[in-house]
Every structure is written in C-alpha cells, then in structure tokens.
C-alpha cells in the first residue's frame, strides 16, 4: 500500500516534471514578456524534429541532441522575433493569438511537408530505458532523468533571472520598457534574447517529451491545452508558479488514474477549474 503510494508519488512528480519542461518556455514568453504565444508548441515540435533527425539520420546520441535542439529552436525563435514577433509586442492579446495560431498552422503544414505525417521513432540510450531501483522502489529510469533535468533547468533559470545583471534588466524591461530604455537598457536586445531563451526551452522540452508524448505534425495543437494549463494555473511571470502547478497537476493526474481510473483522466481539468477559482491570477501570479 505504502509502496504503491510512493510509486504513484514518484510517477506524479515525473509527469509533473514533463509538464513543466514542455511549458516552461511558454512561461517565459507569456509570463515574462506578456506575449500570448500560442505557437509555443510549434517550437517544441521543431526541437523534437531536430532531435529525431539528428538521431536517426546522423546517428548522434540522444543526450548530445538536446543542446542542439535548444540552440536551433532558440536561433529560429530569435530570427522570428526580429522579423515578425516584435511587430506585435504592443498589439492586443487577440492579435497576438491570431498571429501565433496562424504560425502554428503553418508550422504543422511545413512539418507534414518535410517529415511526413507519421509518428517519428525515438530510441533512448540503454541507460535511460527500463526501471532502476531507488531506495527499494522500482522507478522508470527516464522519469528519474526528467526530474533531474527539471532541477537543473529550474536552478539555472532562477539564478539567471534573480541573480544576474541580465535578469535584472529583463525584470526592468518587462515592468516598464520606457523607463528601462531611458536608463540605458537595450530593451530590444533584452527582448530578443529572452524570446530566444523561451523558444529554446520549448525546443528542449519538445525533444525531452517525444519519448512520452510522441511526435507528429499535430503536436502543437494536441498538447496546447497542457502548456496553457500549466502556465494559467501556475501564474505567468514566475518560474516557481509553473513548477508548483505542474507538480500538483502531474501528481493528481497520476493518482486519479491509478486509484479511480473511471474518472481519473478528468481530474486534471477539475483541479484546474478549482485552482483558478481559488487563485484567479494563478498560484504565484504577479498581477491581480
């Protein structure tokens, strides 16, 4: 009984970690930059395809593809930010939504054209497959790996935003772009780097997610609900919010499916509704 519960707890944390990884990029663009970027999933998908292509076509090991997936999507994100996104920073959220959803559909069509509509295979290295024993508990090796990545990403992001000069500039630029520019901060550059970081994280999340979520051109639409859910419940604008939200949602989803499989799959949505009623701005929302 206790062992069962510990197993569920671990799986829940691991699933929450995955939710966090695929959503954290959106938390950066939506939360820190106030841009409703529904094309987030498209960047995640690009990261996934970069990872798969490198592995199957060039035999690059899985772990080595992850930084490349991050870098390539960050670069594409930076280019799109310079050419397209920046025109819409001052636009209404509806315009941003329409623009980014259009971009998503273009990405889906492009991915179908280049990679075809079928599922992409991903073969994890031997060390990340199967189960390992941890304090007498059998846990999935890949799940353990995902949790480790989340810890790394979270620590790095928190340090970047809260402890570095760049982080201070970002916070200043987001809070008041005009004043920030007035005191000599290159707001445009800060925004570009931030956007690239957000899309890069999306790409990383996409690459890490394919083993569990699969990868085909409908990826951006299929998982959009989950990205939005985590960011909405967590509250935009912090790293901690989405992390806590993802862990809560992940745990209750897994526990619900395990203990009451008849309704388990809906618990995550019920929980979202309840949490949003209790915390309309999200768990750690900065704005009321």
């Amino acid at each position: 009984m206790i062992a069962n519960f510990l197993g569920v707890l671990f799986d829940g944390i691991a699933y929450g970690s995955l939710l966090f990884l695929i959503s954290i990029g959106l938390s950066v663009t939506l939360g820190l930059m106030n841009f409703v970027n529904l094309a987030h999933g498209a960047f995640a998908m690009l990261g996934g395809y970069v990872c798969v292509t490198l592995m199957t076509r060039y035999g690059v090991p899985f772990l080595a593809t992850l930084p490349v997936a991050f870098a390539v999507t960050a670069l594409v994100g930076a280019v799109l930010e310079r050419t397209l996104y920046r025109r819409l920073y001052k636009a209404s959220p509806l315009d941003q939504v329409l623009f980014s959803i259009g971009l998503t559909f273009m990405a889906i069509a492009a991915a179908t054209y280049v990679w075809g509509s079928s599922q992409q295979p991903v073969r994890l290295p031997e060390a990340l497959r199967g189960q390992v024993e941890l304090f007498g508990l059998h846990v999935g090796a890949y799940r353990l790996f995902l949790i480790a990545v989340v810890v790394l990403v979270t620590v790095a992001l928190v340090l970047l935003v809260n402890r570095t000069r760049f982080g201070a500039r970002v916070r200043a630029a987001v809070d008041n772009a005009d004043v920030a520019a007035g005191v000599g901060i290159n707001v445009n550059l800060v925004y570009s780097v931030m956007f690239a970081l957000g899309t890069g994280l999306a790409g990383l999340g996409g690459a890490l997610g394919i083993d569990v979520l699969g990868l085909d051109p409908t990826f951006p639409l299929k998982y959009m609900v989950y990205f939005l859910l985590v960011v909405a419940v967590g509250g935009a604008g912090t790293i901690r919010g989405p992390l806590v939200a993802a862990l809560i949602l992940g745990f209750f989803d897994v526990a619900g499916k395990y203990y009451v499989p008849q309704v388990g799959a809906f618990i995550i949505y019920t929980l979202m509704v309840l949490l949003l009623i209790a915390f309309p701005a999200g768990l750690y929302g900065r704005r009321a």
Partner: protein
Amino acid sequence: MKRILAIAAALLASTPLFAQEPVKIGVIAPFSGPFADYGRQFEGGIKAYMKLNGSTVAGRKVEVIYRDTTGPNPEIAKRHAQELVTRDKVDFLAGFGLTPEALAVADVATEAKKPMIVMNAASSIVTTKSPYIARFSMTLQQVSAPMGTWAAKNGIKKVYTLVSDYAPGIDSETGFRNAFTAAGGTVVDSIRVPLRNPEFAPFIQRIKDAKPEAVFVFLPAGEQGVAFMKGVQERGLAQAGIKVIATGDITDDRVIDAMGDAALGMITTFHYSAAHDSPENQAFLKAFAEVAADKGRPNFMAIGGFDGMAGIYEVVRKLGNTIDGDQAMAVLKGLKLTSPRGPITIDAGTRDIVQTVYVRRVEKRGANYYNVEFDRFPDMRDPGKP
C-alpha cells in the same frame, strides 16, 4: 419515315462507340489534417491497383476524383458527395476513412442510387445505413473477437482490458469480451481511457498490480499506441508474466517502427500485414512502392483502397457502359476476390466483408519491424451483425 428509322437504327448501333465515357470514381477521405495519412494510403492503394490492372476497364478509362474532408467532418463529406453526384456525375462513391464520413454520405448514396465502396470506416453499423454500401475494409469486432477465442484457447484465462473511450474502442472491447467469455475466459477489469491521454503509467501500474495473465488493448494507431507500449516495457509487464494482446491497430505497419523493440513479441489479430506471404501481396507491395514511393509502407487502409478498386473494376466489367446502382450491388453481393491480404467475400446479405483474420507476432526483420502471421481464423464475419 424509313430513312428516319434507318438513321435511328444506325445511331443506336453506333452508341457503344459514343459511350466510351470514362468511369468516374469519387473518393471522399481526409487528405489533410491529423488523418491525412488515411487519404494518402487510399490513394496509394488505388494507384497500385491501377498500375497492376491498367487504367481502363471494359474499354472505359478510369478517372478517380479525390475530395478532402480534412478529418471527421460529416457535413464536408456530405457536400462533397452531393457535388460528386450532381456535378461530376460519378459512377461510384468510394473512400471513407472515418465512420462519420461514411454515415453522412449513406443517404446521398441511397437517393442517387450510387454504389458506395467503403475502404476503411470500420464501425459495425456503417453497412446498415444504405442498401448501396459495400465494405471492403473490416469491422472492429471482426478483428477483436478472434483474439478472444485465440487467447482462451492458448491458456490465457484472466484478462484485463484497456481501450480508448470512443466507439471503435468500445466495439473492440465488446467483440473481445464476448468471444473470450464464451470460450471460458474471465475479464477481471476494464479501463476506458480518453482519446487524448499522454500518460499511461498509472493505468499500466494498476494493471500490473492486478496481476492478470494478459492485457487486451485497443488504441488508435499513432502516439497513443507508441506511448502505451513504451510504458509497458518500462514497467516490465513481460517480466511480471503479463502478456499484451491487441488488435492490429496498435502495431499498424505505419507506426510499428516508431515503437521499436517495445513492440517485439506482441501478439495481435488483424486482417492485413505488409509481411503477409503471398504472390498477390508481393505484387501489391512492389506496385505500391512504385506509385507511392513517398508514402512509406502500405497498411490496411492501402489494402482497403486496393480491394475497393478491385470491386469497382469487377462491376464495370460486368455492366459495361451504364452503371445502374441496383445492378452494381447485385454484382458486389457475394463477390469473391483474391486480395493481397488473402481471400475475401462480400457477404450477399449484409454487404459487409468476410475475410481471414490472422494472429500475428511482432518480429524484427533487418532494421524494420513486422507483424508476422502464424495462425488464422478463416471466413470471419462481423460478429456485430445478426
């Protein structure tokens, strides 16, 4: 008067020459969107058939018109059918990747008296919706029931079932459960999972803790099946002595390579595998590779397209210049064909397909994975029909 009669007679005599109009076939299926693969597979199967059997039949050229439904959109399918009948004057309506498309077009086929060739749509009820429907694909119960019989015969007595919570999943569950319990097996518990479900771990853990002898699974081909099989491998169900049995949807020829080793040894029942060993299948695979090189390995939908065309050619051969709906159905009823999947018959009463269902095991051949057939249930009818 005599001259007029003579001219009329001459005209009548020469009509066959004038009447060499093309046979028009309207194919309604998703060619874009998440189900785009269905339409592409139909197209590949149709082209492969025409490559092997020529693009003329009974002296008439065959013209195929493709219409895209973009997914399970009944209204679009119906509109396409109406346009194909009234504007393009097609002789046959064909295709139908998804059940809603077929159901929406059934009325149009009845009203226009056009033979409607179903190349996939696999819910049992489809053929009952119009007397002009003939199905060349399969039904879900037809392929899931043999698994129930096979499992009980092979020493599996306690099974857990897990299916997707929508009509095809429930059809499969029913077909399996009825056949399995009739053969003396017990279904210990059943889970229906929602169609969008990225996380299978807790379900799999629950099944593992229940310790059945096997788990019967129906999941639509695609990431769901891949995710499930990876979860099964990660949790070590095989080591715990729990077999995974399923219908062939989950190890579909299109996705099986994406599952990789996770699928190895898995036992499924289905009506077609690209690894089916017959000269007809060899010819089909070769033709498919030539006409649809970019479409990869053909799967059961390509076979549906291929055999649907075979049915259409048979009708045109018998009827020649005018395709009358009722006469066409008379030709299709009881029609027997040797398909790349094996012998098939269109049942004279239900107009549904009767075919061999194979028991297959996933094996690795070179770098690729295949469903290799090792047992069979000949002449399976749809158990959902009286």
